[in-house]
């Protein structure tokens, strides 16, 4: 008997996650034809009318999935009592704790999803259950985000649609609906300033100003369906997925083991987590406002290394700026400065590599790069000096030419006067 009951329970569980009944789903690519939207769009009550109006744009409805696909009932029935008959599976408004399972009925069914998109992932529910949201929901917390919180309940658009709340440039405002609410976040021990901080970051700037959709937004570091904060040990892995060279340099440094021992997050210690602003060479050091001072103090080997690294970088940057100004000035004055501009680019590249090597915290490696940059800068400076000398020569030549022409005019005048006297 117990075995029979277990089998029945398993069957029920399987049914709960099965794709919707065939009559609720039309042919892929063809908009759904159902009575639900025809009646609901005529209703006076906005909360009942709005879903029907949104259906025309909804990715599911456009692919032939009727309202009954989620809400149950009979989508072909014209009488409300029949259409919304609980005996036909009608459930009405889906409670938040049921939303993930309702969506997963299709979205976890690989063979069903294959009809629409062969590459669409089907592990969202499994991921969601490991997320902070999913774990909260499992404990009965109905304020946590479910599928509908981010994707919307009706009028759901594909994530690739720029109007979708999960389109890369809109994700932050979607997460902000809850995560910028400090009083709500305080109940979970979260400061609630994460969105504000992120909006000051270089990542947000790249995403919104440069329109670089590959720039990381909330889900790129925290995960989308499996959203959770990266732990101390995984921060450098998360950042390192894009910033690989810095991560490799960091892994070579004595900081790697030291941070692990102190259980400190790696990148975050100097760059912050959400408010990742463009790094400055002036940050390196132990003075007030400099990042090394968090662990090091004046006089210790770490502080001395930081001082050497900062000095090497700043000296190179200053010289690079000075040479660039000379080269650009010569170019503005009409000189061909292509060679010098190429050398400036080489110096820029050496400086970028030197800044990567800052993560090794090895002054010798950084200095080797900055010396390389300085050598190229010296050549560019020589080109600029030669151009300036050439310009000075041309100016002298122009002055002499003008003087000579003036003298010729005077001589010509005197000669004409003399010839007039003779005649």
């Amino acid at each position, binding site marked *: 008997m117990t075995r029979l009951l277990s089998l029945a329970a398993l069957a029920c569980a399987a049914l709960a996650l099965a794709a919707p009944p065939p009559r609720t789903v039309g042919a892929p690519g063809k908009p759904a034809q159902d009575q639900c939207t025809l009646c609901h769009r005529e209703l006076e009550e906005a909360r009942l009318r709005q879903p029907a109006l949104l259906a025309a744009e909804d990715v599911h409805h456009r692919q032939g999935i009727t309202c009954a696909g989620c809400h149950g009932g009979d989508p072909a029935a014209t009488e409300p009592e029949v259409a919304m008959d609980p005996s036909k599976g009608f459930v009405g408004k889906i409670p938040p704790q049921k939303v993930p399972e309702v969506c997963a009925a299709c979205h976890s069914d690989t063979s069903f999803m294959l009809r629409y998109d062969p590459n669409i992932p089907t592990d969202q529910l499994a991921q969601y259950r490991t997320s902070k949201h999913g774990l909260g929901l499992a404990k009965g917390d109905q304020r946590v985000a479910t599928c509908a919180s981010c994707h919307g309940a009706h009028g759901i658009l594909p994530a690739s649609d720029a109007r979708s709340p999960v389109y890369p440039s809109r994700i932050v405002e979607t997460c902000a609906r809850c995560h910028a609410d400090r009083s709500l976040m305080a109940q979970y021990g979260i400061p609630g300033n994460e969105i504000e901080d992120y909006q000051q970051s270089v990542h947000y700037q790249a995403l919104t100003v440069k329109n670089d959709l590959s720039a990381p937004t909330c889900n790129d570091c925290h995960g989308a369906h499996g959203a959770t904060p990266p732990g101390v040990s995984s921060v450098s892995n998360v950042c390192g997925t894009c*910033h690989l060279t810095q991560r490799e340099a960091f892994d070579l440094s004595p900081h790697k083991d030291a941070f692990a021992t102190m259980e400190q997050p790696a990148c975050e210690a100097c760059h912050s987590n959400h408010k990742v602003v463009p790094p400055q060479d002036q940050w390196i050091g132990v003075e007030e406002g400099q990042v090394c001072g968090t662990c090091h103090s004046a006089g210790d080997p770490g502080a001395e290394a930081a001082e050497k690294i900062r000095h090497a970088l700043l000296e190179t940057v200053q010289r690079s700026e000075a040479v660039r100004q000379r080269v650009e000035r010569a170019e503005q004055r009409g000189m061909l400065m292509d060679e010098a501009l190429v050398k400036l*680019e080489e110096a820029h590249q050496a400086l970028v590599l030197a800044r990567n090597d800052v993560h090794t915290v090895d002054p010798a490696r950084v200095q080797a790069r900055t010396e390389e940059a300085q050598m190229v800068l010296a050549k560019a400076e020589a080109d600029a000096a030669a151009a300036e000398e050439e310009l000075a020569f041309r100016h002298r*030549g122009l002055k002499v030419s003008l003087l000579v*022409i003036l003298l010729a005019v005077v001589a*010509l005048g005197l000669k004409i006067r003399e010839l007039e006297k003779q005649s």
Partner: protein
Amino acid sequence: MSSHQRISRKSFLNWFLGTSLGATILATLYPIFRYVLPPEVAEAPTNRVLAGKLSELPPNTGKVFRFGAKPGILVRTPSGEVRAFSGICTHLNCTVQYRPDFQHIWCACHNGHYDLQGKNIQGPPPRPLEAYRVDIVGDEIYVTRGA
């Protein structure tokens, strides 16, 4: 005024006029002469450059060439096709290079990867590399920008 003084003044005027006219002609001819002589620095063509020789670019290799003041990259794919792109990484303007081991274009600064179409495929580069037109004339590879 004595005739001696007049002759002296006349000859001075003639000398003055001759010398100043001669110097004016020199001042005119010198810039023309400098203009005709080839400059020490090769002047960049605006949109077309001889980027390399086919015989010096075996399959699965690349070569950085100059397009005026900016680098370009010439790539010969493993299948032997020649392609050219801007050599400037779209992330932070470093010069990219061809990596025969990856069989695609790579930027050493922040490990940016571009495929053989110049498309950014891994790492921080936000955009593809600008593609240039390649014309092969005999053994010479010409690259045209903005074509």
